[in-house]
């Protein structure tokens, strides 16, 4: 079980308030991702839940018990750190066994649990090595192994993949998702990478300056972003924003449209412009378009390979029903 509730939690470092009063519920078994730009307070929030930082005010409840004043080790949570935080002088086996050893468990039980965790994470062959002899991905798995042997109420991940190279990151993303499916334990995952958030989460929590901008499933956030910030943060490439007079004509203070919701047409498009940069990926083509009279650059994603290059004139048709309209306050207009 691991239902985590934050009630009016705040955190200040001296005079500066990092997190203004914040309420959030993470249901048991959920994969929640905290996402936001760096410095938005997402790591601080995770550390508050872990107990590595004390709340300035408010309450944190795990399965209905108030744990605000409970020391980190008694909260039944396990954390995986960005730098893995493995104990460098211990073997992989001892690293994974460490929390059990601290809990005073029998050696035979420890061995059984460590072996089981090693099997789940494919670490059997490395148990007698030291962290220094492992690759980044293997170290990450050891860190996860150290977390799962404790059978915690919830797992906390603090940007666990940001030290890995791109290819490995995709692989580990899958592994963590599969682990979540297998264990069905609550997981809270902090990242600044919206792709990780979109691919892994059941529930995304978008944060900016310590404030929750929106909470919802990945597709909810994609389809109906509550404000301009969420609209710009979720989705890759970023949403195009049309401001000023052009937006007024479309009936809003600003209008957002995703690159994949603009169609490239042969001629007589509703919009037209000059291609600045064309990125041909084979499966898709990304155009960065100037001189549209709408925005400085307009990004468009076309499916397949379209043979327009730098300097060509391009005709576009936006899908009217996929436009997002925002008011002067940045909030979505229904």
């Amino acid at each position: 079980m691991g239902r985590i509730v934050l009630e009016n939690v705040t955190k200040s470092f001296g005079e500066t308030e990092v997190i203004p009063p914040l309420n959030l519920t993470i249901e048991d078994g959920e994969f929640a991702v905290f996402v936001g730009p760096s410095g938005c307070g997402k790591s601080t929030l995770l550390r508050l839940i872990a107990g590595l930082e004390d709340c300035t005010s408010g309450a944190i409840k795990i399965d209905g018990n108030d744990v605000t004043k409970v020391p980190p080790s008694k909260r039944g949570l396990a954390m995986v750190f960005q730098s893995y935080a493995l104990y460098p002088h211990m073997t992989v086996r001892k690293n994974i066994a460490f929390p059990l050893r601290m809990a005073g468990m029998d050696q035979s039980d420890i061995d059984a649990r460590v072996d089981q965790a090693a099997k789940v994470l494919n670490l059997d062959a490395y148990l007698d090595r030291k962290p220094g002899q492992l690759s980044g991905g293997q170290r990450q798995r050891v860190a996860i192994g150290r977390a799962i042997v404790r059978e915690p109420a919830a797992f906390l991940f603090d940007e666990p993949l940001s030290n890995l190279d791109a290819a490995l990151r995709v692989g580990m993303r899958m592994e963590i998702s599969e682990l979540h499916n297998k264990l069905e334990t609550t997981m809270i995952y902090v990242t600044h990478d919206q792709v990780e958030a979109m691919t892994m989460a059941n529930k995304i929590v978008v944060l900016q300056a310590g404030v929750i901008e929106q909470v919802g499933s990945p597709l909810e956030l994609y389809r109906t972003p509550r404000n301009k910030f969420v609209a710009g943060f979720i989705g890759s490439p970023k949403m195009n924003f049309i401001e000023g007079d052009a937006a007024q004509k479309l009936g809003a203070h600003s209008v957002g449209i995703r690159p994949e919701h603009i169609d490239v047409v042969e001629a007589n498009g509703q919009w037209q412009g000059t291609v600045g940069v064309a990125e041909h990926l084979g499966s898709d083509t990304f155009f960065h378009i100037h001189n549209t009279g709408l925005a400085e650059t307009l990004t468009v994603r076309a499916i397949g390979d379209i043979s327009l290059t730098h300097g060509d004139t391009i005709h576009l048709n936006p899908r009217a029903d996929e436009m997002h309209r925002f008011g002067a306050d940045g909030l979505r207009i229904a």
Partner: protein
Amino acid sequence: MANRTIPRLLQTPAVLLLLFWMLVPLSMTLFFSFIRYVLNNLRRPEWTSPSIDNWRGFGNYEYVWNQDAFWLAIQNSLLIVCSILFLTVALGIAVAVLINRSFPGRGMVRVLLISPFFVMPAVNAVLWINMLLDPVLGLQGIAVDAINTTIAGLKDAPLVGWFFSLWPQFEPISFRATQTSAYAVIMMVTWQWTPFAILIFMTSLQSEDQQQKEAAVLDGAGAWSQFRFLTLPHLGRPIAIVVMIQAIFHLSLYAEIEIVSRGNGNKNLPYYIGELVNNNIGAASATGIFAVILANIVAIFLLRMIGKTLME
């Protein structure tokens, strides 16, 4: 080839200088240790100049080996070095961990902690033996005297007087005596060298990974477990460095021994060699070679021990 020749040529002066520096004294010592060579002998004046004609083989070694004073010197050297190593490392770790957290005036405390290291060994010895440890005029004498006076005064006090009348009169310890002078040396050198250990351990503690500690906190490790399983292994290498450097320095202690008791009952190997040098250069050289061997044994032994216990 030319690429390598030029750097090697440039290195040559330094290498030659080092070889010269090392090899000349060592080979002279070796040579003297195998000949009869004394500074003053009226019956055999030919022994007073070093010459291959006075070859004695292993005679000098045999002579030294059979001296009780030689074995006492080795024993004393080991006692002093091992005690100092243990005390400086233990105190160094304790103090370094203590001042590794932030508190007002930390910079000041650090400077003060390092300062004993800048005192000259001879001055250090004079200060300790005369001002602190002297049984009459030193701090020790004054303190013991004050305690005795206080107890004597309390013996007549109501209610608690009976308790204090059970107490004996305390006697100050004379640290120049045969039995205690080694302890005086251990104390003063520990005081002087603990800052060195603190300095090394402090820099090492600053580089300790904080996320590892946080991970350990979440894993349920208390303060002691964190120290035992994270900090101490992290300090393994600095401890080895401190032990090795100090072992080298303290095997050659001389000034403190001279000042505390003029070697009375407290000769270590260098002091014993120093006494032999007054006349018997051959025997002194043989002892010197023994000292080199001993230093190597100590170094290997200590490094092995530390390596095994701390690196897990």
